[in-house]
């Protein structure tokens, strides 16, 4: 309860310089310290994650040094660990995913922000957000039983016939492999690209569009030559955000990439990714060096997504600030 005496004290002019003890009695200081404790826990957990990844990969870091990133030998029996095939697989599948998802996502975002009436746009975005909520293991399930056979029987033979002269589309069609994993990733990151890009496009001031239209441009020209360039940095931000998701994606990729630590030029070939090898081998890792090598892979993954997320946030912030500035 608030007593009259504390009330009177608070009403006085010296409110700002109340003693620590009296604030403690009001409960304000207690509340502040209590919530501070929880806020500090967030920082603590984050720091602990980084520290643990660093400390528990020490054996592998010391033994292999930079060679870890350039060696493609992954042989637990002889304690030889090189990360190159996994880094390659992660980058290739993410690149395939982006190549497929960015045009599609950007197109859909332009439709939602420039063409669709606000009500329709909001409803469609609601469904897109639901698509983003589908768990990755469900995508893996569909990948294994629907996409892999489809790739093996139909899509890969077709691509081979049409584009087989490129090394990218050569070799036997297993169904499992980089291309399949990339397609699954594309589906998974599509909703993120759409909803973030749409937001960024909507933050472009109305006057920009109206000026373009008033000068006689068509609606497409206003969208593509004025609105999209204005929001360019933010769109890149959304792409980076999606890329960070793709790099860290585990289950869906593990289920369709083929889990073979090899570097191959063909997208049809089976491969491996950083997250997939951690998922598959972590519980079976016998020996400290093996475990430390896997944790070092986790560290690499963490750093990659850390850098990308930072860049993405910066770019989105810059665009939204620019929109606000022009408007003001």
């Amino acid at each position: 309860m608030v007593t009259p005496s504390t009330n009177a004290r608070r009403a006085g002019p010296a409110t700002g310089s109340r003693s620590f003890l009296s604030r403690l009695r009001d409960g304000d200081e207690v509340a502040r310290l209590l919530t501070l404790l929880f806020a500090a826990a967030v920082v603590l957990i984050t720091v602990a994650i980084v520290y643990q990844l660093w400390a528990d990969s020490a054996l592998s870091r010391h033994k292999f040094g930079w060679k870890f990133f350039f060696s493609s030998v992954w042989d637990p029996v002889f304690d030889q660990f090189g990360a190159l095939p996994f880094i390659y697989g992660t980058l290739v599948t993410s690149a395939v995913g982006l190549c497929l998802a960015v045009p599609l996502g950007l197109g859909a975002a332009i439709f939602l922000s420039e063409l669709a009436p606000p009500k329709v746009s909001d409803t469609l975005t609601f469904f897109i957000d639901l698509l983003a909520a589908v768990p990755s293991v469900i995508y893996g399930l569909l990948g294994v039983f629907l996409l892999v056979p489809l790739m093996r029987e139909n899509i890969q033979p077709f691509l081979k016939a049409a584009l087989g002269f490129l090394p990218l589309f050569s070799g036997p069609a297993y169904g499992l492999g980089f291309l399949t994993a990339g397609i699954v990733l594309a589906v998974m990151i599509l909703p993120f690209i759409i909803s973030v890009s749409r937001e960024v496009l909507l933050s472009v001031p109305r006057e920009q569009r109206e000026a373009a239209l008033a000068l006689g441009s068509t609606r497409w020209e206003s969208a593509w030559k004025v609105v999209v360039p204005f929001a360019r940095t933010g769109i890149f931000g959304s792409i980076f955000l999606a890329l960070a998701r793709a790099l860290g994606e585990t289950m869906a990729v593990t289920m369709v990439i083929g889990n073979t630590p090899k570097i191959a030029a063909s997208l049809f070939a089976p491969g491996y990714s950083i997250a997939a090898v951690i998922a598959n081998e972590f519980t079976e890792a016998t020996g400290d060096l093996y475990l430390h090598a896997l944790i070092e892979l986790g560290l690499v993954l963490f750093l990659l997504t850390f850098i990308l997320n930072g860049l993405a946030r910066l770019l989105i912030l810059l665009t939204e600030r620019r929109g606000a500035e022009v408007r003001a």
Partner: protein
Amino acid sequence: MTARLLWRKGLSAVMLTLTGVCALLALSLLFFILGYLVYHGGRSVNWDFFTKLPAPVGEPGGGMANAILGSAKLLLLASLIGVPIGFFGGVYLAEFGGRTAGFFVRYAADLLNGTPSIVIGIFAYALLVLPFKHFSTFAGAFALGIMMIPITLRSTEDFLRSVPRELREGALALGASKWRAIASVVIPAAYRGILTAVLLAVARVAGETAPLLFTAFSNRFWSPGWNQPTASLPVMIYTYAVSPYEDWHRQAWAAGVVLLALVLLINILARTVLARGVSVPRQ
């Protein structure tokens, strides 16, 4: 000139139609996934699925009752770990936080939000599995709980900040101390938004598989207490889907239907019923 104009107008029409096709394609993906899953798994969702333990390897039949209970336990404990940290941390950011401290907390939360789930699994493994030498429900829930923190924290902060200043000042003017104003005026005004965010966080971790693989692991039987490995729906889907048995594949589809229904239901509930009038945070 007219030819040029015609070309531009034609291009505009074609390209705008294409953007519509893109949107339609993205949307149809959702309904295709839903439809395909229900078509393949719907038949296998039966009473046994919810009430029976997995059958011994090689025998057909059985269900996933233990995995359903396991998932429920994991989500409950994860919420008990993640929600208080996120909620009170968010209260700190919105109401008490200074600039420097606020920056660090926000930065840490963003970092946590972007951290791949498998990395959080490694962390939980090193902290709670390795020292005790066995997998446990608790370790799995700890990993999921960490994943719930950033969403809860940032949304709590956002929703508290969006409470009109006048409400706060009204309470203070009536003589309430700051924490009373927060607890009895500001938080009640923002609770719908915060609850929405918490539900979305639960939905997000409900489908997480990667951090459970080496924390909660799996179990073909009931998992009494909190200190033993436990089965969970997502991990069951994974194990069953990559197994060589036809009957397990069938059950993986059934589990997929149940999991997706759960996740989408929470999402729809949170976004439509609770979130009426509040803007839903993006995950």
